[in-house]
């Protein structure tokens, strides 16, 4: 059986950056990607806004992927495209297949960089019939940007996350009419600049605190009905509005892909719907690492790529037997205003220079304070004008400051 230092599963931004990092440390690496090209979702995200953190340059998605893939091709990494992973076991054996056959390989370490999937009509229990013309925003994006096919002419969009907003602009520019975007929450889940340049620029209405209450048609969608909801998410009768459309796009969030985690019984975080990792990006099983959207959903690709680098750096230590494994992990405690953090644990002993903690707040907080407590004593506080669930916050803790048995992060509204 062919043995590598590391096998990376998934060739999107996180997986490519992890592979590059390890290959540059002279490790033998196998990268397995299911699509025929590297890049993952970046290939269909043709808009710009990527790379500002990772490349200090504003790039389109395909350009970011292209650059990272070209950097990767200059390394000694083995890249298997069009290859589907069938199983991963605790002995770090990986089975995969592709056009040329079935393979079983093994490694000293495994990095999961599987990405995420879109929530579907079933996942959100979308009311009304399941008709032709109801697509996820990402699949419509793939049709138009990868295949050149516009899925409809009169479109309504459910969900105001970035994918929903960007698809509103994209379909509008391709000549479709966007009748509106409905958002369940009283605020948008997308970046403010996407509200400005994707909706406001083209006078596309945004209906906050609205849900789709019915989808009508025979075989094909012909009408979408939306309805306002109250604070308890109950429909407010009499506020229904009807839109005659041929297409409904669902931009209702992403969920980390967890199929391979399930084979390994890794410790799960119910908040991220993925697995728990420590500050080395190592999972509850030694030698198994994770990074990117299969760990938690990022707003910006740069952070997924940076996470890939961090995971690969500690994975390299593991391969070299320099990562001490019997250390006490300290769980990061969060107050009730924070929905999750990644990593979930801190490993004080193995940290190289610093630990970056990513977290999201549960709702909008205007004028808030982020406080970090070490052993119940305030270590740092950061005043924020606004905190949004759509925007991931990050805190950097230098190794030299980290002496504690307990760490807690609090978000408090200032009145």
């Amino acid at each position, binding site marked *: 059986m062919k043995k590598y230092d590391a096998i990376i599963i998934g060739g999107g931004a996180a997986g490519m950056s992890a592979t590059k990092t390890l290959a540059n440390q002279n490790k033998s690496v196998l990268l397995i990607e299911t699509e*025929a*090209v590297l890049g993952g979702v970046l*290939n269909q995200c*043709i*808009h*710009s*806004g990527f790379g*500002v953190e990772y490349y200090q340059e504003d790039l*389109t*998605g*395909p*350009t970011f*992927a*292209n*650059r990272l893939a*070209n950097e990767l091709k200059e390394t000694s990494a083995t890249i298997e495209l069009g290859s589907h992973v069938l199983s991963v076991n605790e002995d770090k054996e990986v089975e995969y297949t592709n056009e040329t056959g079935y393979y079983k390989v093994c490694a000293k370490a495994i990095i999961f960089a599987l990405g995420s999937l879109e929530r579907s009509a079933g996942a959100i229990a979308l009311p009304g019939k399941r008709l032709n013309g109801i697509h996820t925003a990402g699949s419509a994006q793939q049709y*138009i*940007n*990868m*295949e*050149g096919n516009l899925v409809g002419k009169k479109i309504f969009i459910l969900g105001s996350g970035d994918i929903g907003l960007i698809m509103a602009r994209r379909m509008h*520019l*391709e000549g479709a009419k966007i009748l509106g975007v409905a958002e369940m929450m009283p605020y948008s889940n997308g*970046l*403010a*600049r*996407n*509200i*400005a*340049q994707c909706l*406001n*620029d083209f006078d596309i209405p945004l209906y906050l605190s609205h849900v789709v209450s019915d989808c009508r048609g025979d075989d094909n969608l012909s009408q979408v009905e939306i309805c306002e909801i109250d604070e308890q998410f109950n429909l407010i009768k009499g506020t229904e509005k009807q839109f005659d459309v041929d297409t409904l796009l669902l931009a209702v969030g992403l969920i980390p892909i967890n199929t391979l985690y399930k084979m390994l019984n890794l410790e799960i975080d119910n908040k991220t719907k993925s697995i728990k990792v420590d500050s080395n990006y190592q999972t509850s099983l030694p030698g198994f690492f994770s990074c990117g959207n299969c760990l938690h959903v990022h*707003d*910006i690709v740069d952070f997924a790529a940076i996470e890939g680098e961090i995971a690969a750096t500690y994975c390299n230590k593991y391969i070299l037997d320099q990562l001490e494994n019997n250390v006490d992990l300290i769980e990061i405690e969060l107050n009730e205003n924070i929905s999750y953090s990644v990593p979930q644990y801190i490993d004080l002993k193995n940290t190289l220079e610093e630990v970056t903690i990513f977290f999201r707040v549960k709702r909008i907080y205007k004028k808030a304070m982020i406080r970090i407590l070490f052993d119940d004593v305030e270590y740092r506080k950061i005043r924020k004008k606004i905190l949004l669930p759509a925007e991931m916050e990050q805190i950097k803790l230098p190794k030299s400051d980290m002496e504690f048995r307990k760490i807690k992060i609090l978000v408090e509204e200032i009145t």
Partner: protein
Amino acid sequence: MKTKICIVCPQGCHINYTQKDGKVITAEGNNCKRGIPYIEQELLMPMRNLSTVVKIKSTSRAVCPVNTKAPIPKDEMNNLIKKLDEMVLNAPVKQGDIVLEYFKDAKIEVIVSCDID
């Protein structure tokens, strides 16, 4: 006082400003200095990046992603998309290859976003 959302970076600052003859007099809410030139450009002529796809003769792909090299006048976006819709590229193409170039209030340059064989 008016408000604009700055689109220069992902922070998306809500900038409250007053202006006279296209010059910003007072501004608050911008976390960096790039906010003021952004507003003045918006008042003069809004500029945007445009990404779209162009048909390509290739064995691997039906369309090729392309993007403007620099922001272009917002009013020119529809016109540019129409021009690009009529074009057909031939593979192979490399990221950065120029697809289309013309002048309309500002120089408009469209380039290939990624290599296609």
